[in-house]
């Protein structure tokens, strides 16, 4: 555990001693600023009875997904690929650290960084509440479920990115693999839109993997246990694949 914490701290520090971390944070903060501006404009135009988080998600789901889809490969691409490229992976794996500890440390390191990335959102929402003079504009429940959704989606995309990074020595290839896998997962939602009105088992499956709709539920304050289980199990699956990929050097 102590060793694991040392590793996580090192992972997090890795984002902040190089320019990667700051660049990603700056880019995301810029996008937040833009979306926040649009949100304020909308609030000025008309009244709404939607929770603020849902409004944010509804009108700006484009931003939210763009940040998630684009930033997560950038966050995770260095985890394994960079260490393999510089060779420090070898020094790491010859210390008495288990493969699982390394995988979990890389995952949580990027996950914590992801959470840092989203923290301005909370600030934005509180600013809106302050100036709208309406304490009910944000209630802790909807805010909590929104953050839960963002966190769970983040965990899934971080695990997916770590897996992509463990496959290669090149950060660019890692980012591309993560981007393709991530976008494919996202696009599954649109299959359910395209097939709207149909019935049958395919429709049922696609409804269950519609990330866009599920995230809307979270933003609305609805915590359905099914997507929670889906995200958690997919996260575990990708972490398991990452572990196997790390161990593959033993039988290659």
């Amino acid at each position, binding site marked *: 555990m*102590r*060793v694991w914490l*040392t*590793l996580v701290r*090192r992972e997090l520090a*890795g984002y902040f*001693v*190089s320019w990667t971390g700051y660049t990603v944070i700056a880019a995301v903060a810029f996008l937040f600023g833009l979306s926040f501006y649009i949100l304020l404009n909308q609030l000025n135009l008309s009244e709404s009875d939607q929770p603020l988080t849902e409004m944010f998600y509804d009108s700006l789901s484009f931003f939210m997904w763009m940040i998630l889809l684009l930033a997560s490969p950038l966050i995770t691409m260095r985890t394994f690929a960079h260490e393999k490229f*510089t*060779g*420090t*992976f*070898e*020094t*790491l*794996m*010859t*210390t*008495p*650290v*288990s493969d699982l500890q390394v995988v979990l440390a890389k995952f949580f390191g990027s996950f914590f960084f992801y959470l840092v990335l989203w923290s301005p959102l909370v600030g934005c929402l509180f600013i809106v509440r302050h100036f709208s003079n309406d304490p009910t504009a944000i209630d802790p429940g909807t805010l909590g479920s929104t953050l839960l959704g963002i966190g769970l989606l983040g965990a899934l995309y971080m695990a997916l990115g770590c897996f992509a990074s463990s496959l290669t020595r090149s950060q660019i290839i890692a980012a591309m693999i993560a981007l393709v896998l991530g976008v494919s997962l996202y696009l599954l939602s649109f299959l359910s839109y395209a097939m709207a009105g149909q019935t049958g088992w395919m429709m049922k499956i696609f409804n269950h993997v519609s990330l866009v709709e599920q995230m809307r539920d979270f933003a609305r304050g609805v915590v359905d246990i099914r997507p929670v289980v889906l995200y958690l199990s997919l996260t575990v699956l990708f972490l398991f694949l990452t572990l196997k990929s790390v161990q593959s*050097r*033993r039988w290659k």
Partner: protein
Amino acid sequence: MIEVVNLTKRYAGHRAVNGLTFRVAPGEIVGLLGPNGAGKTTIMRILSCYMPATSGTARVAGFDVFTEADEVRRHIGYMPEHNPLHREMRVRDYLKFRARLKGLGHGRSRERVDTVLEQCGLADVSKRVIGQLSKGYQQRVGLADALSHEPELIILDEPTAGLDPNQIRAVRQLIKDLAGKHTVLLSTHILPEVEVTCSRVLILHEGRVLADDTPRNLEKLMSKSGRVVTEIAAPLHELEDVFEHAVEIDSFDLSPAEGDYIRCSLTARPGLDVREQIFRMTRDRDWKLRELTRSAHSLEDIFVRITRPNQEDEV
């Protein structure tokens, strides 16, 4: 300290290590010598538990590298080829991080880091960023890392590659200072390195041990068919005549040197030393003699001879 029995590592298509067997006793400094691709790095990676062997066993400090990998890792300090480091970290932070990874506690790791910083002459640069240090200093950081948890066995893969002569000397001195306290296994394809630092040499070729002895014994082995270089002032044709008729001399090569002298490289028949004879010859004929040396066979010759057995040595 190290016990390797019948170790084989197969990569797709070829064997990097082929039925290797050797032992290293505690306190020895052993050099693995071999051309690129002889399997040096593979052996070190197996011993440091980075990857397992295809067959055979290897034990380090009494622990099996495959089944007791964590214990083995606690007992070895490993510096891989090209000495990979986190270049963006500061020297002290890096060593502290590594010491913690190896399971040292907070206070203990600080204490050890201070010790190795001193030991490797890094105290002055402990706050510098590793990437900005010279290669020599970076190499010392790698060495300090390998030492930080007081391992019994230190494995160094080409520790002096890419350094300038002064840096090489400094790193070699550091390695020599480890003798006695630690067992050291180092690999290199630079011959003087083993001559200077190691107490034993294993010459590897295509994954097998071709020779296993002290550097001095290996040299002795080779010097039996000694070569003699001499400079004599005498008419060329007379010299040719004399050498041609001397039964002890296998072959010779004459070339003009400074002044009236002629430089003669003589290869004597195996097991013979012709120096005395040459001295007598020049004295009898009243020729002037200004050099008479038996060229000691360096490890280099041994290396070339052993690893390229079908080619006549061109020395």
